[in-house]
C-alpha cells in the first residue's frame, strides 16, 4: 500500500550538533524520494532528492541516505542552525507513476536549541 512515515514527530537538537531525521516507506516499488522543509506558514521547500539506484547523496550541509533493504530513508543535517527549525517531510514517487504524484509522510518537527 501507499505509506510513508517518519519515526519521530519531534526532534530537538542543540545548535551546532548534527541532526538525523528518519523516514520509513512501505512500497518497495518506490524509486524516487525527496526531502522537503516546511517553515510555519510557508510551502514545502525542496531540500534534496535521491533515486533508488543510489544509496547516498550529498548537498550543502545535508546528506540523504537510502537503504532499500529495510525501506528506510534518512536526512542528515550537519552543524544544525536555528534557521533549520521547521517541519521536515519525506515524500516518494512510486516506480509505476509517471504522473508526479508525490506521497508525503507525516512530518518531523526539528527544534534547534541555541
Amino acid at each position, binding site marked *: 500500500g501507499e505509506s510513508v512515515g517518519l519515526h519521530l514527530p519531534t526532534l530537538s537538537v542543540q545548535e551546532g550538533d548534527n541532526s538525523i531525521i528518519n523516514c520509513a516507506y512501505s512500497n518497495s516499488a518506490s524509486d524516487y524520494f*525527496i526531502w522537503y522543509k516546511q517553515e510555519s506558514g510557508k510551502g514545502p*521547500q*525542496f531540500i534534496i532528492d535521491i533515486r533508488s539506484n543510489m544509496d547516498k547523496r550529498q548537498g550543502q550541509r545535508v546528506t540523504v541516505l537510502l537503504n532499500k533493504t529495510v525501506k528506510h530513508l534518512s536526512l542528515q543535517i550537519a552543524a544544525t542552525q536555528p534557521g533549520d527549525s521547521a517541519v521536515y517531510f519525506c515524500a516518494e514517487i512510486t516506480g509505476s507513476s509517471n504522473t*508526479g504524484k*508525490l506521497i508525503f509522510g507525516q512530518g518531523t518537527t526539528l527544534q534547534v536549541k541555541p
Partner: protein
Amino acid sequence: EPEVTQTPSHQVTQMGQEVILRCVPISNHLYFYWYRQILGQKVEFLVSFYNNEISEKSEIFDDQFSVERPDGSNFTLKIRSTKLEDSAMYFCASSRQGVYEQYFGPGTRLTVT
C-alpha cells in the same frame, strides 16, 4: 531565483460558493500540480497536469474540482461548490523536466464557513 507564486494568500468563502485559486508556476516548467494540507496533517496530492491535460487525480479530486491553464503563465484550481471540509492550505507545484524536483508555492489558505 524563480519561484512559484500563488494568489490569494488567504481566501474566505461561504459553503456552496465557487472559488478559484491561482498559481503562476516557474516559467520554463512543464508539469504542474495541486496539493492540499489540512491543518496539522500531511500534504496530500490532488492532481497533476501536463500538456494541457490531467495526468492523474486523487480520490479527493472529485467532480467539484477542476484545473485549467488559461494562458501561458497561469494554472488555476476551481472548486465549484465548496464544503466545510475543503478548508485547507492549497499548494501549487511545478517541475521542469519530468515529474521530479517539484517546487512548491507558498500556498493559499482556504477557509470555508
